[in-house]
């Protein structure tokens, strides 16, 4: 038995090494495609006519749905920032998920809320709405007090309350510009029949410190790969910090949100493809909305855990899509599964198995070093490539020294941090998966 294990272990390690190298090559190809796509999108960007759009009565009403987790100062600031968004007919629908009396008081004080009677469309099934409020200030704000049901339930309630034909939502910690709505509306107005969603996200500003750089490297790979790379084959999947705009009709057609924006976009892709309808989900790689830039390891950990849990939830709902619906099932979903679960598992298993094999004398140290070094260097080079491709994809206005610092921090990222991150990536994905499974019961 031991002889069999001794024989198989080197072979298994070689197989893992080859898989990791293959995945690295595939990711470089996707990053390159993403950079080209992002550059193409930017070239197609037009001189802005927002002033006209802003004035035009023809611009559809947009409802921005916000579901802040609490009544803290950052949450209130987030809602204030939403109220500053420019658009012809904007409305902010603030959905409070089972707030306590104290939290409700804070919101009432902050926005001078008054109860209102407004009819709610029962289009999507949600937890019961307890009360509706509007602000006595001259702002288009509707506040919904509802029973606790989670983020997806909040978004669905917001859709029921909002009347606009276009729905938008953004992460509470995203940094977005005031013209975001108008810019997002543009592709929707250009091709209203086919455009079911528009999403904008771009890497955040460079921050000093290794944790911030590690987060940025991870985000760059996601942005160029998951967003821009997949957008080239109309299988775009959103990244954290995105500003997502959706056709209300399309959202109602698929029965609303089950988890976060990622799940929603996958669902939209799947449904439109199943119905064989011509459709498009537009990705705008411009810096209209950016994820917040965490500076501490703890904050980086939390931000990545949130994303990983969202991926877990999305995979829970759409695992059946693997190997179906063309590039969605053959590229996007398997890619997501591989990058967020299989590769971290393989890397970890490879390291543990390699160490055990060397200790048992089943593999020569030189051979093991080669087996570990080849994929490790490949990962470093993938990250470095992403740093340079970002410059190709975006406006060349970064600080040269920041680019160099980020470029070389790819080495540090892969020497310890990445291996440690792999462990909790797997854990967080399963947490998200489990939470989604429990939520549906």
């Amino acid at each position: 038995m031991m002889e069999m294990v001794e024989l198989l272990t080197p072979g298994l390690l070689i197989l893992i090494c080859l898989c990791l190298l293959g995945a690295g090559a595939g990711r470089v190809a996707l990053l390159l495609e993403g950079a080209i796509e992002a550059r193409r999108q930017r070239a197609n960007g037009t001189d802005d006519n927002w002033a006209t759009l802003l004035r035009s009565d023809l611009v559809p009403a947009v409802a921005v749905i916000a579901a802040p987790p609490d009544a803290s100062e950052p949450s209130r600031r987030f809602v204030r920032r939403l109220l500053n968004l420019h658009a012809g007919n904007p409305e902010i629908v603030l959905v409070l998920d089972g707030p306590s009396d104290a939290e409700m008081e804070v919101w009432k004080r902050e926005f001078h809320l008054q109860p209102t009677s407004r009819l709610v469309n029962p289009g999507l099934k949600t937890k019961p709405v307890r009360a509706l409020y509007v602000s006595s200030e001259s702002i288009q704000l509707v506040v919904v007090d509802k029973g606790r049901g989670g983020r997806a339930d909040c978004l669905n309630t917001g859709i029921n309350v909002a009347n606009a034909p276009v729905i938008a939502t953004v992460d509470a910690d995203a940094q977005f510009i005031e013209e975001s709505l108008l810019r997002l509306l543009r592709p929707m107005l250009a091709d209203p029949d086919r455009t079911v969603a528009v999403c904008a996200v771009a890497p955040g500003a460079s921050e000093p410190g290794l944790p911030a750089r590690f987060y940025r490297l991870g985000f760059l790979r996601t942005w160029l790969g998951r967003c821009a790379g997949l957008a080239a084959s109309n299988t775009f999947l959103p990244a954290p910090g995105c500003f997502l705009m959706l056709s209300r009709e399309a959202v109602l057609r698929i029965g609303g949100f089950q988890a976060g924006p990622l799940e929603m976009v996958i669902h939209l892709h799947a449904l439109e493809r199943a119905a064989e309808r011509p459709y498009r989900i537009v990705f705008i790689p411009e810096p209209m909305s950016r994820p917040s830039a965490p500076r501490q390891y703890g904050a980086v950990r939390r931000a990545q855990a949130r994303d990983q849990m969202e991926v877990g939830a999305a995979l829970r709902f759409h695992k059946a899509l693997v190997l179906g619906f063309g590039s969605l099932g053959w590229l996007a979903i398997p890619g997501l599964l591989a990058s967020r679960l299989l590769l971290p598992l393989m890397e970890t298993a490879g390291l543990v198995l390699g160490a055990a094999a060397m200790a048992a004398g089943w593999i020569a140290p030189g051979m093991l070093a080669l087996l570990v070094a080849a994929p490790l260097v490949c990962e470093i080079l993938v990250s470095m490539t992403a740093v340079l491709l970002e410059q190709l994809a975006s406006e060349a206005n970064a600080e040269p020294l920041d680019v160099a610092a980020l470029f070389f921090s790819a080495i540090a990222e892969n020497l310890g941090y990445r291996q440690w991150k792999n462990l909790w990536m797997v854990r967080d994905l399963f947490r998200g998966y489990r939470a989604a499974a429990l939520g549906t019961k």
Partner: protein
Amino acid sequence: MITTALKAVLALEAVWAVVLLVLLGVTMAVLSASRKRRLAALAADPAIQDAVALHLGGNNDLTQLRRLAKTHPEAVEASILAFQSMIGGTTRLAELALGLGFVEHWCEGAHSGNPARRRRAFSRIAAMAHAEPVRRMTGDIPVAGLTDSDEQVRLEAARAMVCSEDLGQVALVFEAMLTDAPLNRLLLAPMLRRYAAALCHTAVPKALAELGTQPLLNLLRLLVSWECSLPLLVDLRPLAEHPEPAVRLETMRLLARVPTSATSRGTILSGMADRDPAVVMAAVATVGRLKLPDAIPQVTSCLRRNVEGVARAAAIVLSEMGPEGRLALEGQVGNPDPIASRAAREALELSGAGPSAGRHNAGPFAGSFAGTITGPGGRPAETPLVGKKQPGPVLFTAEVSA
């Protein structure tokens, strides 16, 4: 063999690393150069703005501006355009752009094979097209741009032509936009609105008579979107009987904008008997907008048509038609048809006349419903709106499909 293969992989990775290092060097050099240019332009910006402001103030000496335009052409061009957008229709800035050779440069750009350069050129031409000297220089370039393959170029060309205030050119833009991309129609519609009266006497009747279904639909939506009274003296009955329901629907909406006559009243009343509920709703909304008291019996019969959306639209219109309408509505509260009675009750509540008006509890949400009220274009909304601006786009399909 595996060891050799892995060594080869590492060697390949080493080559890749060297390439990346070279590319990093190039990127840093490019970024440094771009940073220097940005900083230089930023440093020259106050001097450029001062020079442009002095020129606007009456200084005709272009020596300094010529010198600045030579070293920082983009910054000077941007400054002229920024002043232009701030102070509007002055020809002095246009003459400055001509004097510094920018307009000539834009004319060259308008013939470029690169769409991005063409867009940029046309956008600048459009910004200065109000000035006669610039129009003389650009000649037929905007007219040619109207048939460009690039959507943005067509839009900018159309903007340039509308700025000329030449009714012939405006009519050309109007005709072209009826078959252009939806976004271009949306952006140009407000610009054409000021020529609405003139177009209603010339291009609109011709287009109404000649166009196929889709451009006709675009035209009707455009006319409705202008949201103003239109001196359109055309019999719209044939359009109200068009086989395409969307055309009939938009015709009903348009009837709220044209001078009311016996014929148009008859057309609206016939619209309320249409087989398509959306058309009926539009006709009902038009009645509400025009406040036609003699149509109250027909609106009341719409309330009883057993179609939920139509019933709500009719109920809300009746609630807005004064005592007579409200009386008719109250008469329907006890109607055995549950749809009619509920719509009547809800409309009375919304208008403040109902027994539970102004409720603030969870009542409306439990077993809630989608009500229908009329929008600014006399358009019935798909979902209820209380105290809120209506979604307005008539060019937005998602809503049109209501």
